[in-house]
């Protein structure tokens, strides 16, 4: 296997070097678009249109960031994204944790039916339901409100939330809860006093993943919101292509600003995110 090529005492240095060259290329390709677009956002217009493109930046400028931050719609969109993703995360964790606990810990007859239903929803093509939901939301006046997107985001994020939480809850030691129950705690008390604090790291990881999911959502936001007062960044930024028609620098700056919170989350919590992402897919 490949695992035998770079480790072990008798292997040649050449293999080790090749391995690191491969790693370097892989990391470079993964990060290249972000780095390149960042570069595009800090050069002058003259440099931007130079052909062949310059690779090195002569004194970086922040004009493009000034342009987008002085645009009230962009600032509004950042706030909207934060509200939508934040509220979605809280609602998902509340219902998701309760449901996941029952699935991980309690015995009941239709457990596998419930899990299959939840799994089915995560494969569900969301576009299949936008027409009836659009009609429904229009009738009850939810179009153009945060709730239209929060409700639909919750439904499509819940399977992910439940799936990951079940995996985390299953790993927690059972003895503590049983001890609590022997001492007279009810199921709900055992859940609140024992499981919740113990599961905090897992719940936190799930929160990050749910937040990223809701922050990145586009289809529902693009369908139900058509006013800058409620649109999140995912809808606002592609529109910048029409607002700043040839201002590619401003477009680049906007893309960089939106991804920075995500890049920070990823760098800080990479270990947890990986364990959360793989928890549901792989049975250890």
């Amino acid at each position: 296997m490949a695992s035998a090529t770079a480790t072990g005492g008798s292997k040649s240095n050449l293999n080790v070097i090749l391995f690191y060259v491969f790693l370097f290329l892989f990391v470079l390709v993964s990060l290249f678009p972000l780095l390149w677009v960042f570069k595009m956002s800090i050069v002058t217009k003259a440099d931007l249109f130079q052909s062949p493109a310059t690779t090195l930046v002569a004194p970086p400028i922040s004009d493009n960031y000034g342009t987008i931050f002085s645009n009230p719609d962009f600032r509004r969109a950042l706030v909207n994204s934060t509200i939508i993703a934040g509220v979605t995360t809280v609602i998902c964790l509340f219902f998701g944790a309760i449901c996941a606990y029952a699935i991980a810990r309690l015995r009941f007859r239709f457990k596998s039916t419930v899990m299959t239903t939840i799994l089915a929803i995560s494969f569900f093509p969301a576009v299949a339901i936008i027409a009836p939901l659009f009609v429904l939301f229009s009738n009850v006046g939810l179009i153009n409100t945060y709730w239209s997107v929060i409700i639909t985001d919750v439904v499509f994020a819940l399977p992910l939330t439940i799936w990951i939480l079940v995996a985390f809850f299953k790993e927690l030691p059972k003895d503590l809860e049983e001890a609590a129950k022997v001492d007279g705690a009810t199921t709900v008390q055992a859940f609140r006093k024992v499981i919740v604090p113990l599961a905090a790291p897992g719940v936190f990881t799930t929160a990050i993943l749910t937040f990223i999911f809701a922050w990145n959502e586009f289809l529902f936001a693009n369908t139900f919101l058509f006013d800058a007062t409620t649109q999140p960044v995912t809808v606002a930024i592609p529109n910048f292509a029409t607002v700043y028609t040839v201002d590619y620098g401003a477009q680049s700056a906007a893309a960089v600003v939106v991804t920075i919170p995500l890049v920070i989350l990823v760098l800080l919590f990479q270990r947890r995110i990986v364990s959360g992402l793989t928890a549901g897919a792989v049975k250890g």
Partner: protein
Amino acid sequence: MTTASREKKRGWLKEEFGNPERRTAYYMVLPALLIILLVAVYPVINSIWLSLHQATITQTGQFVGLENYTEMFQNEDFISGLTNTVIFTVASVFFEFIIGLGIALAINQAFRGRGLVRAAILVPWAFPTVISAAMWRLMFQDQVGVINYVANAIGLISEPILSDRTLLLIGSILVDVWKTTPFMALLLLAGLQTIPADVYEAARVDGANVFQRFFQITMPLLKPTILVAVLFRTMDSYRVYDLFWVMSNRQLESLSTYVYKGVRISQLQFAQGNAAAVFIFFTAFLLALFFIYGLGMQTSTED
């Protein structure tokens, strides 16, 4: 129904709902399940209903049977959406799987700089699809785009990438492969790490070569993970919307963009949009069934 079986039925009902622990379990599962069923399942049924009528956004209209479907299959935009979606799904999942498996095999070991590699894996994954599409669009752009420049300089393309639909489709596949191959590698790596090392050791002692070890040990033991990863990616690619929408500036059609246009842009095609929505729903459902029953994927979570 005989008395005995009715007794038996009442027996389990009593057992399920008479037992306080089980009752609590149902109370705990119900809210989440109700939310999901109300918001996801009811609209599907409504969509099917609407697709059989001359529906507009404000009224259901006259019953027309399957007319919307026959018209839909004669619509050029729908056919090109279907073709693009199928090509996109097959090509992107194929490349993601092959490259992802290669990367997973290569980094399935302890080495310095693991953290950096893991971060590099997660960055493209965490990007909003529309933002990565916008970023790549900037790089494909004919005035300032670095990729367009390079491809032109080495004679790979004769016209600007963004003005040609075939090149746009290839570009979209490239962006999808860039964005999700690392995720595929991550899942496969987690699967590889559950294969015990002594299995390989034993095979080596028995004289199995690299290829034998790969095809006789790695692939069979990795099969459950592969199926999960490929199913996830297939379902995801099949509903492609944001990437096409932003990358091509609404030029490139997929099944999902066709539905979206029917619902939100061309009100005249509302009924056909619904028919296309139902089409996506059922074909996606069949795809999932094929993976689960045809390829023997395990969905049970019981230990």
